[in-house]
């Protein structure tokens, strides 16, 4: 029985692979695959290279995503800080600075930053296209999505965003700010992607 099940799974996998082989990957297809995901968890390491600092700011922690709009970034090092995005509401909770609840509508710029990751994870191509012009390089084993803000105001702050990954996993998010700041967040899988 077990062997049978394994074989059936293999067949399915092969047929999926056959489909992929048939056509090259594009943004729509990638988003279509992401939109199937219900939840994902991972750990991250982020480095921020800021003009105002002599040394990069390093932080590590965990990431939790649940479709369609919930994203949680739990910073463990250097200091415990929890960032929860639920729909339009961003909650920033830290031991030092207290709890703060923001509406993304009040901070359009913040929305642009956050939507790059969330819309990608949700496979929400409409929202993504509304804020950014998108290009995709590579194949399903290794792809890189480049996002360039459409809005001039946003462009004054964010120059471009690189999101790269494999299959339905976002492995790295690199944000290039217009004034020279840059941040790189690498994410490794921790638990299942469903």
């Amino acid at each position, binding site marked *: 029985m077990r062997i049978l099940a394994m074989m059936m799974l293999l067949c399915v996998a092969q047929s999926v692979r056959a489909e992929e082989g048939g056509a090259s990957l594009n943004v729509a297809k990638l988003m279509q695959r992401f939109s199937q995901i219900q939840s994902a968890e991972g750990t991250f390491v982020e480095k921020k290279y800021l003009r105002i600092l002599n*040394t990069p*700011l390093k*932080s590590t922690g965990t990431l939790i995503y649940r479709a369609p709009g919930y994203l949680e970034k739990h910073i463990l090092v250097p200091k415990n800080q929890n960032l929860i995005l639920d729909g339009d509401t961003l909650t920033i909770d830290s031991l030092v*600075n*207290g709890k703060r609840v923001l*509406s993304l*509508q*009040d*901070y359009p710029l913040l929305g642009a*930053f956050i939507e790059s990751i969330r819309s990608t994870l949700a496979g929400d191509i409409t929202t993504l296209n509304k804020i950014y012009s998108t290009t995709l390089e590579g194949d399903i084993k290794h792809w890189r999505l480049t996002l360039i803000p459409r809005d001039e105001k946003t462009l004054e702050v964010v120059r471009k965003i690189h999101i790269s990954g494999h299959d339905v996993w976002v492995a790295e998010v690199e944000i290039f700010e217009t004034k020279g700041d840059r941040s790189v967040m690498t994410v490794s899988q921790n638990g299942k992607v469903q």
Partner: protein
Amino acid sequence: MRRYVALVIWLTLVVICVLVISRTTFTTDMSAFLPRSPTPKQEILVEQLRDGVVSRLILVAIEDAPPAELAQLSKGVAAQLRNNPEFTGVNNGEQIDVQKDFDLLWKNRYLLSAAVSSERFSVSGLHASLQNNLELLNSPMSSMLQQVLPGDPSGELIYLLNQFEGQARPNRQDGVWFSRDGKRAMLLLHTRGAGHDIDAQERAMRAVNSAFVTTRNLQPKFASAKLRMTGPGVFSVYSRDSIRDDAWRLSFIAILLVATMLLLLYRSPRVLVLGLFPVVSGALAGIAAVSLGFGSVHGITLGFGVTLIGEGVDYGIYLFTQVTKEMTPKLTLQRIWPTLRLGVLTSICGFSAMLFSGFTGLAQLGLFSITGLLIAVSTTRWVLPSLLPSGFEVHPATRFGSELMKVVHFAPRLRSPVLLLVALAAAFLVLRPGTVWNDSLASMSPIPPKDIRLDEQLRRDLGAPDVRYMIVSSADDQEQVLQQSEALTEILRKQVQQGELDGFDAPTLYFPSRKVQQERQAALPEIAEVQKNLNEALHDLPFRSGLFAPFLQDIAQAKQQGLLDKASLKGSNLEMKVDSYLIKRAHGWAAILPLRGVKDAQAITADIQRHFAAPMVLLDVKQESEQMLLDYRREAAKNSTLGALAIFVLLYLNLRSLRRVVDVALPLIAAVIVVTTIWIVTGHSLSIFHLIGLLLVVAVGSNYSLFFDRKVESEQDQARTISSLVFANISTMLGFGLLSFSHSPVLNAIGSTVAFGAMFGLIFSAILIVRKPA
């Protein structure tokens, strides 16, 4: 000669009244519901409802077009209104609104921030806030923080912005506020004029309307869009308009109908005009008396008072319809005067209870009615007879009279069924569970329910907080009251931390007292010291050197900058807040601190009183205003009962027979019971307006029953009397019946109550009172 004396006195009186009225101010605000010796809480509440910030709000919705178009319309309308001096605040969610505030907060951050202390700029203080900033750089706020960090490492701006969080904000779409369902673009306007200044509110509404129409006409795709407005001022304008329009329109129709009837009856335009003399002079005298007695006349008084026309017209009818060739006006008056006089005295008794009421509105109504009735009956008694053409006689009275008498003779047979019916109705009213009174705020409000629903909807859409609790503290001068506000703020901050309440607002968050501003300025270190402290604090932190040069400059500047005064807030939302929460009163100043999410108002009050010695009250707006209106209704009911008792005493003193008193009173009591039952059975509950209506039923109806009760000399005399009652009754029913077509709940309630009541009063008088001619 004597007739001329009466005429001259009357004319002089009319002229004086007109002069007084021309100088009279008319009010329409809540002050009518204010007791004459109000508690401090009530005074503050009424002040707030009259011209507080809540009274100056206009909520605007633009709907019935696609969202993109609605957003453009919202921007267009707001742009026009921002230049209009009628408005102190125009908010539609655009960033324009925020920029000015942001600049003000930034420039004055060291004067405004309650966190400023010398400790904050010490090595350890700076080190701690820089550490916090490092953490914030790890949050999504990073790019925003970097813009302000070089000038504000101690985080004053963030501290200030944190204070304003928790204040509800509406949804935003395409850069402007939208309702939650995305169907309406929302604007929130603050008028310069107070809520009780209805003319100013009307100008503001017209400005909104014309801004909307101009914007809508710019593009054809806007054509379908509609504008909606609500708010306390808007309600005042609507209800004034509807009362005015209805009163004018319906009075006009009523006068036309009554005049037609009287013209057919009198067949003399001159007599018709004469018949209006008592009414007009009574109303003029009533208004003038209230104006002299109270300094102003309330709209409600006018609304109620004008309905007294119904009784005033009757006096002329009683006189004219009973005059014949043989029976001169003088003789007729001699005959009916005792009854007429008793009728008037009865009505006056009823209304005099109102005169002694502790509420301005009721007292005005009492004075108006009493003066009006006295003058109307005096005009009938002493002015009309000499003006009536000689040989005047009402013709149809004789033929109509004999037909009428057949009905009247038959009527007493219905005595038992009617008494049974009334007894059943009385039993129903007494035994049914619950009260017949509707004491909800809405029932007192002269605003149609659909407008109230729209208001609630728009408030929800805007997430406009329902201000229920506020702390009000008063002092002799502005500086003192601001310092009190600061002391209260300290206590409230602790209570927020302890979870007693969610948050609060205060004038001093935007405009601190001079004392506190100076203290904060003094707490700022000298530049050399802050430079030294900063360098030490930065020792183990990764911030680039020289980054905080703007901070050093700003601190140096803040140390010498002029203190923040009210003028420097001009044109910002901060100014609007300060104007709302810092109020110049008749005596001294008041600071208002609205509270959010109050768990236990009493505990908060007790806690504040332990730490705070200056005058302070915690006002529960909802409870206090409901209580005030309830007291008002209760007092009106109590005074009406006293009035009814006074009427019985008066009748007994005059009639000298308990049986006759019962005879006269029974039809009135029956009419009141039956009308009340009709209201309850048809699913209504009674408001204060119905109560006033019932009082009028007794006043008008007492004339009927007294005339029925009067000893008559002949069958002919009785026929004439009764037909005069029928005509008087028809005119009353026409006048008040028409009011029941009004959209205004006030006019509607009074109109239908009196029309029904007068009809039943006459019918029951005919059935229940049997007097054979002598």
